[in-house]
């Protein structure tokens, strides 16, 4: 576990927040596979919905194999930015944007870029778990079938592999063909994560993915993120500063549609360069 020197009253560690669970996570063992390189870079992104200028000149870079937390007060454009990464924002009415987002050196706004290819690279975890209206098994195979995997044996392997990756296998292996809606909300969120992982993404986009969950399920998801960062770049939008303090490696602070400050978590939390960041961390506004 990372130790912060930060003297702020909001300072939190995993052990403190979850001391009642008496189960700390050892972060040091997790060494990633460094061969795969994922790359996401945003340059001069401006986004408007009707007349509103939502994102203003956003430029940033998301490091691979790290948990990047996007923090900031409500309405600062965090979720909009996240939804721009996989272009889910396209369906919004009155949307306009300029600038570019480079994913593995491909501009995702380029007309030649196929939107499904971009989305395949981005696993999305929404605020409330949203399983597809089908069985647990079909939830995971749905994405694989879209991308051409039809072999039954291979599909069964993927289901087992991904359910194991999110620690759900033991809980559901006897009822794989039961409706996913029968799972508890925490299990549903892990199923959604497994469903996203099954299409082999490079990034995991999480939009306040733990805010609807109970503390134990939240901890489970956080632990999974820490574990998964060895293979994926994780981008987490969060409202809870304590969550960012616990798991972030890299932090982006946004305010009124602008990126105010971005950098390694230690730096931002312990030694923010901007006055606004410092005030936000101290809880002067939220």
């Amino acid at each position, binding site marked *: 576990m990372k130790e912060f020197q930060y003297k702020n009253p909001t300072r939190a560690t995993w052990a403190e927040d979850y001391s009642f669970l008496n189960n700390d996570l050892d972060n040091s063992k997790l060494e990633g596979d460094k061969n795969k390189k994922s790359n996401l870079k945003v340059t001069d992104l401006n986004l408007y919905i009707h007349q509103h200028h939502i994102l203003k000149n956003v430029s940033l870079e998301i490091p691979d194999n790290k948990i990047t937390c996007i923090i900031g007060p409500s309405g600062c454009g965090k979720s909009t930015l996240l939804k721009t990464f*996989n272009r*889910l924002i396209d*369906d919004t*009415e009155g949307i306009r944007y300029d600038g570019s987002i480079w994913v593995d050196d491909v501009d995702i706004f380029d007309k030649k870029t196929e939107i*499904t*290819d971009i*989305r*395949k690279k*981005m*696993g*999305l975890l*929404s*605020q*409330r778990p*949203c*399983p*597809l*209206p*089908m*069985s647990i098994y079909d939830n995971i195979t*749905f*994405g694989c079938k*879209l*991308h051409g995997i039809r072999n039954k044996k291979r599909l069964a392997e993927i289901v087992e592999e991904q359910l194991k990756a999110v620690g759900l296998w033991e809980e559901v292996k006897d009822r794989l063909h039961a*409706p*996913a*809606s029968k799972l508890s909300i925490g299990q549903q969120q892990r199923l*959604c994560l497994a*469903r*996203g992982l099954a*299409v082999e993404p490079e990034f995991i*986009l999480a939009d306040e993915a733990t805010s609807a969950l109970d503390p134990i399920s939240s901890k489970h998801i956080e632990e999974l993120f820490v574990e998964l960062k060895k293979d994926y770049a994780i981008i987490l939008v969060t409202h809870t500063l304590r969550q960012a303090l616990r798991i972030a490696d890299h932090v982006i602070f946004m305010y009124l549609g602008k990126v105010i400050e971005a950098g390694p978590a230690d730096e931002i939390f312990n030694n923010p360069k901007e006055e606004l960041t410092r005030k936000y961390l101290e809880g002067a506004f939220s």
Partner: protein
Amino acid sequence: MRLKFIEERIAKILMSLASLLVILFVVSILYTILKRGMPALNWDMATKIPEGGYYNGGGGGVLNAIMGSLFIVLGSTILGLLISIPVVFYMNVYLSKTSKLAYISRLAFDVMFGIPSIVYGAFAFSIMIYLGMRTSLGGGILVITLLVIPIFIRSMDEVAQHLPKDLLDASYSLGATKLETIKVVLLQIAPGIATATLLSVGRAIGDAAGVMFTAGFTDSIPTSLSAPAATLPLSVFFQLSSPSASVQDRAYASALILTIIVLIISVLGRLVTTYFSKNKI
């Protein structure tokens, strides 16, 4: 006792009275049909086509009308679903909530909903004359399809409008196109599709005016789409028009058969609905 509890009690009594009133209607209709229809009901009614002089008290049954009605219901339900599902999918997945086209379409379907079936019948009849067609099973199916489309679309649309945005996003973010998302949408609105089917089968099997000019009436079971087809409501009408009391009783027996068919379809429909609701989130 405080006033609001008295209010509550009175409201509860009024609500149960209203429910009882509705049940009373159904029971009294069933009683009339059963009282006059039961004595005339026999296997011949359901298994034989009319013999010569049937409408004057001769032997035979109304199998011609039973089969004609079932063919028309089956044909129009399949055609109706094939047309309505794409419309509902297009309005709710491709068009935005504030789309003018969607607004106008919904308005149009509401108007279609309210048009009486005799108008559809007259409309289709004029087209059939123009095309040189005769009264036929195919014509009947077309008119009843027009009749059930607004029922299909509006009742499925009601469910589809509440599709969670997150659900569509979940499918898109796995790399599905909108078209590939149709599987998710269909599974989610499956209970709505089942209910819509029940409603439209009820309307399709019970309609007399629409089929009068278009499907015609015959004593034989239709063997092709271009052959005329009898229907149960028209059969009831013709038998009821007879001056003979025994033939009139057979009209009630035919109505009873119609009611039993509707009952069977409703029970099956409810089973299917429960089955399809299991995966809904």
